C-alpha cells in the first residue's frame, strides 16, 4: 500500500515545498520508492527546489487529463535513486484538478510499487489545497512559530478533519504531525517568537520536529538541492531526524535550545 503524505500549512511561505523536497528525499535515501507531487498548479515551485525544472515535459494536469501517462510525466531525481517528481502545471489553473483524476494518479502510483507519495500542498484553503489533502493517510502540518501561521494551521487541521476521504468515509483519522519550521531559539529566548511548546500547546497534535531558521535553506533552494542533502548543516540534520521520527524511530529534539555564544566564539566569530 502506498502511503499518501500531505505537506500542508494553510499559510504561504512557511516552508511546505522545502519540507516536501527534504522529506521525500529522506524517505528515498532510506530505500523507499517515493513520489513527490506538486499540487500548486499555476505556481509550480517544487521542480526548482528539486533542481529538475529543465526536465519538465509533462505535468500533473497532463496526467489527470489523460494527455500523458505517469511513466512519461514522472521525473527521476538526480540525487536519489528511488525518488520521482511529478511537477505541477505552470500554465493551467487549479480548476483543472479533479478529484477522480487525482485519485487515479494516486492509484496508478500505487500499482507502480511506490511506498510513499508526498503531496506538496499549495497555500490557502481552496481547491488545490483540498485536492492535496483529500486522499492523505498522514499530514505534516508545517507551521512557523508565529500566531497567524498557527491560526492557519489550525484551520487546515479542521479541513483535514472534514474534507479528507478518511474523514468522509469514517475511517481512522488522518495521522497528524506538527513540524515547526524557521525556528530561532534565540528569538524564542528573547520572547520575540512562540516556542515550539507554545505552538504544540495551541495546535494539540504530536510534534515531529523543529527545523532551525537558517540561510542554508535559501542557498539550497537556489542550488536546486533539497536542504536534507546539505553537508554540515543543522537544517539537514533536523530534516533527517524528522524522517527518522516519521518512520517510528525515537530521536531527541535538537536545535531548540539557545546556547549563549562562548568567549572564543565571540572573539573569533563563527556561525
Amino acid at each position: 500500500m502506498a502511503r499518501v503524505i500531505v505537506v500542508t500549512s494553510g499559510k504561504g511561505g512557511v516552508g511546505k515545498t522545502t519540507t516536501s523536497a527534504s522529506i521525500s528525499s529522506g524517505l528515498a535515501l532510506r530505500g523507499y520508492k517515493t513520489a513527490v507531487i506538486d499540487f500548486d498548479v499555476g505556481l509550480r515551485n517544487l521542480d526548482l527546489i528539486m533542481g529538475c525544472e529543465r526536465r519538465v515535459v509533462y505535468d500533473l494536469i497532463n496526467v489527470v487529463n489523460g494527455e500523458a501517462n505517469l511513466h512519461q510525466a514522472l521525473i527521476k531525481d538526480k540525487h536519489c535513486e528511488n525518488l520521482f517528481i511529478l511537477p505541477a502545471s505552470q500554465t493551467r489553473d487549479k480548476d483543472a484538478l479533479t478529484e477522480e483524476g487525482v485519485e487515479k494518479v494516486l492509484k496508478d502510483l500505487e500499482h507502480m510499487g511506490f511506498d510513499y507519495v508526498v503531496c506538496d500542498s499549495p497555500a490557502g484553503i481552496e481547491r488545490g489545497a483540498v485536492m492535496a489533502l483529500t486522499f492523505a493517510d498522514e499530514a505534516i502540518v508545517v507551521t512557523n512559530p508565529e500566531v497567524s501561521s498557527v491560526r492557519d494551521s489550525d484551520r487546515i487541521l479542521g479541513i483535514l478533519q472534514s474534507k479528507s476521504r478518511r474523514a468522509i468515509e469514517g475511517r481512522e483519522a488522518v495521522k497528524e504531525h506538527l513540524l515547526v519550521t524557521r525556528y530561532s531559539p534565540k528569538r524564542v529566548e528573547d520572547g520575540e517568537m512562540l516556542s515550539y511548546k507554545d505552538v504544540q500547546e495551541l495546535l494539540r497534535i504530536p510534534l515531529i520536529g523543529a527545523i532551525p531558521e537558517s540561510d542554508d535553506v535559501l542557498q539550497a533552494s537556489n542550488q536546486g538541492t533539497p536542504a536534507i542533502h546539505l553537508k554540515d548543516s543543522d537544517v539537514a540534520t533536523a530534516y533527517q531526524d524528522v524522517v527518522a521520527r516519521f518512520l517510528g524511530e525515537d530521536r531527541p529534539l535538537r536545535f531548540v535550545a539557545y546556547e549563549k555564544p562562548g568567549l572564543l566564539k565571540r572573539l573569533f566569530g563563527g556561525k
Partner: protein
Amino acid sequence: MAEASSLQGKLIEFKGASLAVMTAYVRDTDPVRLADALHMMLGGMPDFFAGEPAILDLGQLAADPDRIDWTGLLSLLRRYQLQPVGVRHLPEHLYEGARRAGLAVLGNEGFSAERTVTPPPPAPVAAPAPAPEPAPAPAPDAEPAPQTAAGSEPAHAPTLVVDRPLRSGQQVYAKGGDLVLLAGMSPGSEIIADGSIHCYGPLRGRALAGARGDTSARIFSTNFGPELVSIAGVYRTFDRGIPQAVAGRGAQVRLTGSDNLHTLEINPLQYD
C-alpha cells in the same frame, strides 16, 4: 362503495396539531427602518431563518399606524427566509389589509409560547435572536447554522458530544440541548448551544450558550480563554485580556440578576 373509502379514499382529512412557531415582535412597520435593523442583526446570513414559519406580533408597536405596507414588510422578512404565516395583536382597522396580504389574522388567545419557562430576551425586531453581536461569517465546512424557533420546544434534545478538537473556522450547534467538548476548541471556532456548554480542555473561540434565550444556561471550561462568551444574548469579549483569576483555569460563566438586568458573571471553578 362507502366501505371502500378507507384511508386512501379520504382525499382530505383534518386533525388538530400544535406547531412550534416563532414570534417576531415587530415594533416598527416601516420596511426601510426594519431592513436596516435586520441587516445590522443578520447582515451576513441571508438564509438565517431557513424557511422557519413565524407569527408577526404587532402588540408592541410604538405608534398605531393608519396603514401597513404589507408587501414591503413580507418581502423583507422573506429575504431572510422567514415565512410569516399569521399576525396577531393587530389593530382592527388593519385586519382587511393583512388578510389581503395572505396572512391569517389570529386571535390573541391560545398561544402557548408565552407560557414557556424562559421568556425570550427583548430584541429589536424578531425575538429571540442568538446573539446581538455582528453576525459570524459562515464557514464553508461548518455545520448548519442555528435556526431560531420559539422557546416552546422543550430543551430535551440529547447532549451533543464532540470528541475531537474544534479547529479555527469550524462551528458546532447543539440544537435544543447541551454541548460537551472533550478536546477543547481553538481560536476562530464557534460553539453554540441552546442549553449549557461544557468544555474539557481549552476554550479559545466563541462560546454562545442559551442561544434561544435560556438565561439559566451556563458555560463551563477547564481551561478558560475564549474570544467571546454569551448567554442568552448577553455577551462579553476580552479585548483587554482574560481576567487573571480565571485565565487558563477552570471557570464558569452564568447570568445573574433579574429579568432585563442580567449581568454576565465569570467565576473560577472550585475543585477539591
